[in-house]
């Protein structure tokens, strides 16, 4: 393969500069700031800061509240990831079988992709409105007195539901294209080899979707951990008191509501390490795992 090259060394660097500047100003610099301020105790009124070493981290490690939120985030992430992947897969498999009007079905199923997280959260608020929300009514008909923002479990359920709803289209698009990349003749061979559609799915379709699935797993974990901020924020209406929240939301609450910049920074650093670990897993495991030719 022919490799195009530059004749001078300065031109490529110049061309890289804007992108590097964006990354440095918006990513590395704040990250470095966060690491630095995690070692300081910030005066709430901004009159100065005291170096406290690892105090912020030991406080986090000993905090039962933080542990509780971490546990909730774990459960929340597992539920959101599992349900958004499972539902999307089910929809993709069904949509793949539709012959007439396939395009319209697919477009409708992808629609929600365009909804911004806070808007999704707001729609959730309307659906679960205490006095007239249709989903509240539905829950009531099953004997479930749904009180969003009052009962922690109810709020958590709404958070999971809205987050899953928001994420399903993304997974759907990937699963559908994954399904369509399975050669038709392989499916037909399976049709001749195996009479049961369910067996065929688990023996042939599912393993061939595994590369897509692994990729989506990482994407969904990241989504549930970080990108659900807008949904959580709208649903708990800035009244976190009794409500469940995720680790990312806790960073915001402590840093910007509680003005505890040091503690909040320490939490950010913990999350940064988590993201780093996920990235390593993605590159090491997913990139290398099961790829077929």
């Amino acid at each position, binding site marked *: 393969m022919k490799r195009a090259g530059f004749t001078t060394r300065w031109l490529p660097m110049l061309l890289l500069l804007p992108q590097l500047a964006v990354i440095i100003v918006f990513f590395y610099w704040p990250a470095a700031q966060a690491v630095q301020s995690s070692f300081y105790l910030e005066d709430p009124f901004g009159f100065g800061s005291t170096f406290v070493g690892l105090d912020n981290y030991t406080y986090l490690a000993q905090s039962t509240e933080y542990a509780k939120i971490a546990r909730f985030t774990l459960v929340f992430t597992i539920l959101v990831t599992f349900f958004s992947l499972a539902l999307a897969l089910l929809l993709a498999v069904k949509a793949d079988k539709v012959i007439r009007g396939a395009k319209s079905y697919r477009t409708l199923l992808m629609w929600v992709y365009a909804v911004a997280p806070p808007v999704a959260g707001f729609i959730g608020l309307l659906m679960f409105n205490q006095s007239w929300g249709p989903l509240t009514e539905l829950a009531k008909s099953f004997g479930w007195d749904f009180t969003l923002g009052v009962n922690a479990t109810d709020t958590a359920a709404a958070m999971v539901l809205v987050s899953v709803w928001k994420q399903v289209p993304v997974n759907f698009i990937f699963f559908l294209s994954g399904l369509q990349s399975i*050669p038709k*003749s*392989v499916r*037909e*061979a*399976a*049709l*001749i*080899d*195996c*009479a*049961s559609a369910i*067996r065929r799915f688990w*023996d*042939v379709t599912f*393993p*061939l979707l*595994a590369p897509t699935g692994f990729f989506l797993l990482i994407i969904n974990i990241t989504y549930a951990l970080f990108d659900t901020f807008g949904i959580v924020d709208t649903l708990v209406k800035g009244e976190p008191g009794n409500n469940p929240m995720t680790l990312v939301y806790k960073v915001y609450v402590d840093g910007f509501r509680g003005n505890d910049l040091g503690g909040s920074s320490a939490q950010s650093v913990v999350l940064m390490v988590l993201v780093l670990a996920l990235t390593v897993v993605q590159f090491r495991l997913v990139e290398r795992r*099961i790829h*077929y*030719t």
Partner: protein
Amino acid sequence: MAQVTLNNIRKVYPNGNEAVEPLSFSIADGEFVVLVGPSGCGKSTLLRMVAGLEDISEGTLSIGDSNVNHVDPAERDIAMVFQNYALYPHMTVRKNIGYGLKNRKIPAAEIEKKVQEAAKMLNLTEYLERKPSQLSGGQRQRVAMGRAVVRDPALFLFDEPLSNLDAKLRHQMRIEIKALQRRLGVTSIYVTHDQVEAMTMADRIIVLNAGRIEQIGTPAEIYHRPASTFVASFMGAPPMNLIDAQVKDGRVVIDGDTPVADAQGTGAVTMGIRPEDVEIGPTCDMPFTIDIVEELGAHRLLHGKLAGQDFTIHIGKDVAAVAGPIRISINPDAVVLFDAETGVAL
């Protein structure tokens, strides 16, 4: 093992396109039938209807004694070899071959025994633990064969199984498939657009064109007694010479007055003659002009003009020929006459 009967089978797509016109034929137990025709003639559609991968629009299909029109592909007791092999990429060769058996509730020990037998028969024993991506084209083709053989089905279906292989391998696999089919005695339907494959492998050939059957016959019948000008020009390389001729006074004449063969009736006809049924020599009765001599080693092809029309002659390697005028004569017994309008054999 079973007889297969197609009775007025027709395929119409929802857009109104008729891929296969109503057609009927039956295949005897153990027979190797080749469906041959150009792209889009409906041969693959027909095969896929037999497999159950396409719905049958009209007509009835029976395999053995039972009507299978509405039977699932897996329940039809068939095995199919696909053009691009269609192996399961995530399974080893062993699992690929055994998958169809596993789903039929056959005990693991018996599956293992059958897989080993099939692998031995196809020289795949040392590749059993490999994935398809680690195999060559010919080996993948063998695995696809193994997957069919191991099932011991009533009917084998082959959908252009050799068209992805190079010429040398294709020749070798052609012989292997034919030998295997002979040994197992399984009724087979084989689809191809390659007339050499059709000629060499078939017990009986069905020539299809535009969703219709042009001719059903043994390779020799198809070759020597084509039922239409389509069959005459499709089968054989080079194809049969087709020349405009006249029938006068019970004789076929081309251009001048030299009678070529006896015939009944009168008027314009299309005369067919295979390139090898022509003799050359100074005492022959017709003039011919050689334009190009195609040297093929074992034989030569002389391309030129007979009475102003394109004509090809096949001669042995020991007969000398150079471009220019020569004399030829046509073997009257090998002449086939077709209706000049419809192209149907007279």
